[in-house]
């Protein structure tokens, strides 16, 4: 039963702490504008990096915003890691394999959950496909990323022991998972375990599965504490910094936020002599 609780807690921790991280960034005060073009939501102009500032008296012109464009760019980034592909292809291959593998494993988990309620043949196929693709792609990507980091002189120099640890931890989870789940009947065991978990039964597992589950839970707790929670940060770097170009016009949301910020002047003061002169 302890293992069940540990598993539940780790997943809960993952969700809660990731949300906390997001809340922390979201609740930071409004900042100076630091957008960088192209900004995808600039309808009709995003293709060459233009903005509403290309209009005479831009404040009198209707603002052309394309959320569709923004979502398209966001999806390209999420599904294909577009920036890395465009700017660093050699690293894109391992990184993409790794990330897409993780996406498959996410789908696999959902299929496993569905499978408990809907044990049809179709879901078994889906479980097998997503699971195999996920474990294989993520493991290959992970190993390739590790090799790259170790053999590339420039990357090695900047990599901290913790960053190796992160990759090794996930690799350990993946490899122990492959070992634990690839029994006679593919993915029979995880389906069984999910079932036991959802019905709050004590888990009956062999040592290989036990090790995998312990590592997996540890990973769930560790990720949101480490910079591997970049799935949170990336939303803010793009949406709240690089693509955020809302002008401060009378009556705008920005103006309101600025008024609120002005009501709480900073308590900390800088010390250089010129900072405290009028």
């Amino acid at each position, binding site marked *: 039963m302890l293992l069940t609780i540990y598993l539940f807690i780790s997943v809960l921790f993952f969700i809660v702490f990731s949300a906390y991280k997001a809340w922390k*960034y979201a609740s*930071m*005060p*409004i*900042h*100076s*504008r*630091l*957008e*960088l*073009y*192209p900004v995808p939501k600039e309808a009709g102009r995003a293709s*060459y*990096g*233009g*903005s509403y*500032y*290309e*209009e*005479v*008296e831009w*404040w009198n012109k209707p603002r052309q915003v394309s959320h569709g464009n923004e979502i398209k760019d966001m999806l390209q980034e999420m599904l294909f890691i577009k*920036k*890395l592909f465009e*700017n*660093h292809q050699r*690293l894109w291959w391992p*990184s993409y394999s790794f990330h897409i593998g993780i996406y498959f494993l996410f789908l696999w988990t959902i299929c496993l959950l569905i499978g408990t309620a809907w044990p049809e043949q179709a879901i078994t196929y889906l479980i097998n496909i997503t699971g195999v693709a996920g474990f294989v792609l993520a493991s290959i990507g992970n190993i390739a990323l590790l090799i790259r980091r170790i053999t590339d*002189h*420039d*990357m090695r*120099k*900047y*990599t*901290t*022991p*913790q960053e190796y640890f992160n990759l090794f931890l996930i690799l350990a989870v993946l490899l122990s998972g492959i070992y634990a789940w690839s029994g006679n009947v593919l993915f029979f065991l995880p389906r069984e375990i999910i079932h036991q978990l959802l019905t709050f039964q004590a888990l009956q597992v062999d040592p290989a599965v036990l090790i995998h589950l312990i590592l997996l839970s540890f990973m769930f707790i560790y990720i949101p504490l480490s*910079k591997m929670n*970049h799935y949170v940060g*990336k939303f*803010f*770097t793009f949406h709240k*910094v*690089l693509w955020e*170009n809302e*002008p*401060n016009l*009378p009556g705008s949301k920005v*103006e309101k936020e*600025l*008024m609120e910020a002005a009501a709480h002047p*900073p*308590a*900390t003061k*800088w*010390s*250089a*002599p*010129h*900072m405290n002169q009028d």
Partner: protein
Amino acid sequence: MSHSSEIQPKDIAKPVDKLGEVYSLMVLSAPYDKEGMEPDLKEPKDSWKTKFCASLDGFIALDTLVRPSTSEEEDEFVQKFINGLAKLFADSNNNFLQPLQLTMDYCAKCNTCSEACHVFEATNRHELYRPIFRSEVFRKIYKKYFTPGGKLLGKFVGADIDINWESIARLGELAYRCNLCRRCAQTCPLGLDNGTLTHEIRKIFSQEMGIAPTALHTKGTELQLKTGSSTGMNKLAFLDTIEFLEEEIEEKTGRKIKIPIDKKGADFLLTHNAGEYLAWPENPAAFAILFEEAGLNWTLSSSMIGYDNVNYGIWYDDTMARKVALQQFEAAKELGIQRIVIGECGHAHKAGIVSSDRMTYGEDKVRVESCLPLLWELVETKRLTFNPEKNNFPVTLHDPCNIVRHMGIVQPQRNILKAICPQFREMTPHGVDNYCCGGGSGFAVMQSLNFPDFRNKISTRMKFQQILNAFDEELVTNTDIVKYVCAPCSNCKGAIRDMLEYYQATDRFNIHYGGLVELMVNALTTLEQPYLTFTDE
């Protein structure tokens, strides 16, 4: 140290005379690929080495960072830096907290951003100039002092750095080896911004330690707040200058123009970088010619800072930036004008339109826009008519980072050039992917000690290469024809002026530079004489 690739961020405290020597540079295109086409780098003077921090790469940008004489002073310096670092992550830095924290938290050390940097590339990838080298030094210090992981686990999380006077001083110098062009940020898969991080390091030095290049602070923002202009030009001198401009216009074009000053009820206030009046008066003069011919209801301002749109504060100090920006809004309001049009100055565009956008609100705020869409409108609507044949020489366009990458004003200037310059050609790359001129973030005006060597030889190198390539065919085969680099930005012009002089490119290959409006006036059908003469550069 020998090969630069052996240098690591944690070496920043290393007790060596010079952490990294710049020993090789990107080979330029022909004919600059031969020996003797450019001056060699010089060693810093011994007296500079003992007075300032020349121990990073031999260059000195911070002419106010003086070596201490006692160990107490050293400790005080380090402590001040740490205090400033804490303030960067406190409410004292609310306006940058989110972008700063994100960049501090997430770097994957993937090095995708490295190749985007013209400084790194110009030095054949010198380690000191890798965008994340500086960020990592900073990150390591931050971790060591301020994160639980860094305090508890030290080296494991990368908090392996010694902190002493030398390392902090070198970091200060490093903050002035980056043009804040943010080209690197465009490529980062996580959306991180090493340029902004550099800006934040500069802020600790200025806002907490009182250290900034003289050209930016004492002779920049402070002088501007005292006299009205960072050039030191006061109101009387400004009025004299305008008279001189009117005489020049009459002499050059035969037109008697009364340049409107402090005209109440004007549709908009035009502001220039005051450096233009001194270095390139033909630029503000060209604006006056165009606006008068188009019959616009415009004015200049003679009130405090109303005649100088520069704002060096955006490069190193938020408080100075704010003081200058608010005063500029004030100048428009004094005239009852709600609309400012910024002339050809890139950082003034960014400062006046974007950076100051959230500095105030409501009544205190004035609407600000770029001159480029307005100029294009005059061309597009045929309010002005042009004979492109008058500009029938090779013209290329430099995209000022502030106007283009940071603001998204890409097309108006190109549309104009396509309409009035039959031999217009783009640089590669251009638009939002452009390279900085190498003068960005204050480098163009920082002339003390040996810093101009760094600028001319290293930070402007990529731009010079782009210029050479843009004129590829005509460069050597036809030195008789004029080649024009159009740079609609005062700072970029300053950097390009110095670069062309340093490489003797005007004398040798007839490469000239200037703004956009000069080309427009030169092509006006109504003007009999050429406006551009290319004689006195």
